[in-house]
């Protein structure tokens, strides 16, 4: 049961943080939903397209992600992660559902981490719309991942982009499950620590 709150002028939404926009969305503010969409649609679409490799499927994931935001904004809990983490979590979950359904249908070839190519999936009209902040975030993550041993990086990328479980990764790379569990645990600890220190040094 959503209860409308008074709308504020559109220009004011630009000054709100993502978390504040989500709070307004929880109060039924449709302009806030539009503002969050404008701000985050490229991130969500890029992830969906990377996971699925199909523009129609990615479009469905984008709409469904922001629809879930509209319906469940009151569930957002800032202590459990940032708004962009929440959006990526919804989008990835939806995309992986589609990917798993596609895997069950042999006539369709789902994009996997093996076949996904960084340049092939890039849109021809890629533009710096999201500005320097997005580029900076991207550079931070690339830098943090570059510090990981290749086998650790491979494990977490297979988990994140192909949606594989630890057991499936073990099977895919031909290593014992225990080895994969160790790689993932170490990789995530290092990634968290490295991102934290990079962000601190960047501010």
């Amino acid at each position, binding site marked *: 049961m959503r209860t409308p709150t008074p709308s504020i002028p559109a220009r004011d939404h630009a000054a709100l943080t993502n978390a504040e926009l989500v709070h307004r969305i*929880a109060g039924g503010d449709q302009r806030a939903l539009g503002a969050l969409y404008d701000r985050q649609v490229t991130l969500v679409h890029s992830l969906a397209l990377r996971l699925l490799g199909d523009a129609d499927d990615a479009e469905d994931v984008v709409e469904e992600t922001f629809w879930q935001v509209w319906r469940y904004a009151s569930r957002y809990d800032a202590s459990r992660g940032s708004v962009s*983490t929440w959006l990526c979590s919804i989008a990835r979950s939806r995309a992986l559902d589609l990917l798993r359904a596609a895997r069950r249908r042999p006539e369709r070839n789902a994009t996997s981490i093996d076949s996904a190519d960084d340049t092939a999936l890039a849109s021809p009209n890629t533009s710096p719309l999201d500005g320097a902040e997005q580029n900076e975030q991207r550079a931070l993550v690339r830098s943090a991942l570059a510090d990981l041993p290749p086998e650790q990086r491979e494990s977490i990328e297979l988990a994140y982009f192909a949606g594989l*479980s630890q057991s499936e990764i073990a099977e895919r790379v031909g290593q014992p499950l225990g080895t994969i569990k160790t790689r993932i645990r170490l990789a995530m600890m290092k990634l968290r620590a490295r991102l934290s220190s990079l962000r601190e040094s960047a501010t």
Partner: protein
Amino acid sequence: MTHAEAQELLGALSLDATSSAEREAVLAHVAECDDCARELGELRDAAHSMARLAPEAPMDPARQARVRAHLLARAAERAQPAHAPLPGSVKPASIAMPPRRLTHVSTARLVAAAAIVLVGVALALWAVSAEQRASALQRDTQRFLAAQRSFEREIAARDSALADRQALLDAMTGAGVQVIEAGAPSARQPSAKMFWDQITSQWTFVAHNLPRAEPNRTYQLWLITRAQRKISAGVFATSASGDALVIAHYSLPKDSLAAIAVTDEPSGGSPQPTTTPVLVGPYR
């Protein structure tokens, strides 16, 4: 699951790469352990930072605008459930012929040539017309497919709304649902009921008579464990008549809940309660 065992699996959980049994066990521990809950939040941020590795791919502007418009239309309909617009009707595209001008016909010698020219023009017009008809047909097909897609989405949205209503009914009447009543200390004041579905871990909170939150303030719902851990179940606003409904999903062991509470917090909510609760409901 011990703290050390949970710690081993937090990274995999942040990537949703555990088995479902591991997931349940770790989440049950996390519900009781502040350190693990905080660490899991940080690991989730780190995991989803990998989304930035996806090549930046802005949506095609037409798609982006279409999804935005459709999303906001759905939101408007959901906020004010009135009549739904019918899917757009498909109009046949008009086939406009460009004006043709014949010029300079002055002598009999040109009659035969003119006849040839006229045949040529007729053939050319026929060819143009056929091409335009084909083009119009293609446009009609595209419009039809767009209308069909829109129609399918309307059906999906209605199915989703119906499923939501059924889910709400189930969440309040299911076999595993516990009811926690919450009231304010003073008489005939705000009241609330929490329906805790212990099977699905869904929490459905219904409140009445809550005054509207002050500007830049919001209500926040809390689950308080017997270990005095305060877990946010989300922020919410009230309707003009003081009603509110909050739905949250959170896995909590059956015997660990002590109470639910509602506090008044700054916009966006607080990590921990900062004011005296306006509503408290002890559990059993």
